[in-house]
């Protein structure tokens, strides 16, 4: 009986601790979808961004937000006249919206890059492809993150 009570008190204390933990972890400032739009604006200027041509591959569910494999590619002949200049990757809810910018020339042969990124939350990742004719293309992928990066150690 006594043991059971202490177990209950322990569980209550644990639950209180978890609740406190949740309150604390909500606090860090993070980017917002608006901040992401601003960051994208900074890259594309006043150009129109169309959907398509960019292929963004991310796992739909990631157990560890500290390393999420990402592959991004843009279909392009990669000739001096028609190639991909850059691919930029943005997130909505990381502490800052920029993730990475890849810059290519016709010598890259293929506009396709793989890397590993951090995700602080379940969110949508957006990739913007910048072509040599000055047009911008985008793709988005939603990722569910179980263990958030930035807050916990890997």
């Amino acid at each position, binding site marked *: 009986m006594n043991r059971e009570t202490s177990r209950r008190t322990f569980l209550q204390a644990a639950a209180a601790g978890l609740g406190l933990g949740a309150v604390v972890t909500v606090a860090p400032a993070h980017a917002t979808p608006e901040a992401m739009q601003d960051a994208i604006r900074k890259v594309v200027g006043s150009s129109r961004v169309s959907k398509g041509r960019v292929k963004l591959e991310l796992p739909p569910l990631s157990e560890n937000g500290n390393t999420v494999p990402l592959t991004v590619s843009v279909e392009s002949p990669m000739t001096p006249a028609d190639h991909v200049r850059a691919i930029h990757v943005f997130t909505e809810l990381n502490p800052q919206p920029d993730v990475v910018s890849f810059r290519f020339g016709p010598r*890259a042969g293929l506009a396709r890059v793989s890397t590993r990124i*951090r995700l602080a939350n379940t969110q949508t990742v957006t990739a913007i492809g910048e072509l040599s004719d000055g047009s911008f293309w985008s793709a988005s992928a939603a990722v569910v993150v179980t263990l958030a990066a930035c807050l916990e150690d890997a």
Partner: protein
Amino acid sequence: MASALVNVPPRARRGEIIEIKTLISHPMETGYRRSQLGAAIPRDIIRLFVCTYNGTEVFRAELHPAIAANPFLVFSTVATESGTIAFQWTGDNGFSATESAAITVD
């Protein structure tokens, strides 16, 4: 201190698109974490990666804190001529690392 691994095919046909893989050991400290005592841990990341092929830049990546620790990059280039493919990583606190690989193009 920093150890880099690069994977470049040793031989290629002229005009072939080759895949290059690079991995470098680096904590990529975001600057948003706190130590157990609550003090902010300052940012320490690699900001720039550049790949040159016989002196000509073929690929560049600007990294931000959202890149996972030990940055891993896979990209491609066209095998144009025999020579050296050089890699350079630069970052916060004067971080700089270089690595190169030879390639024979027939």
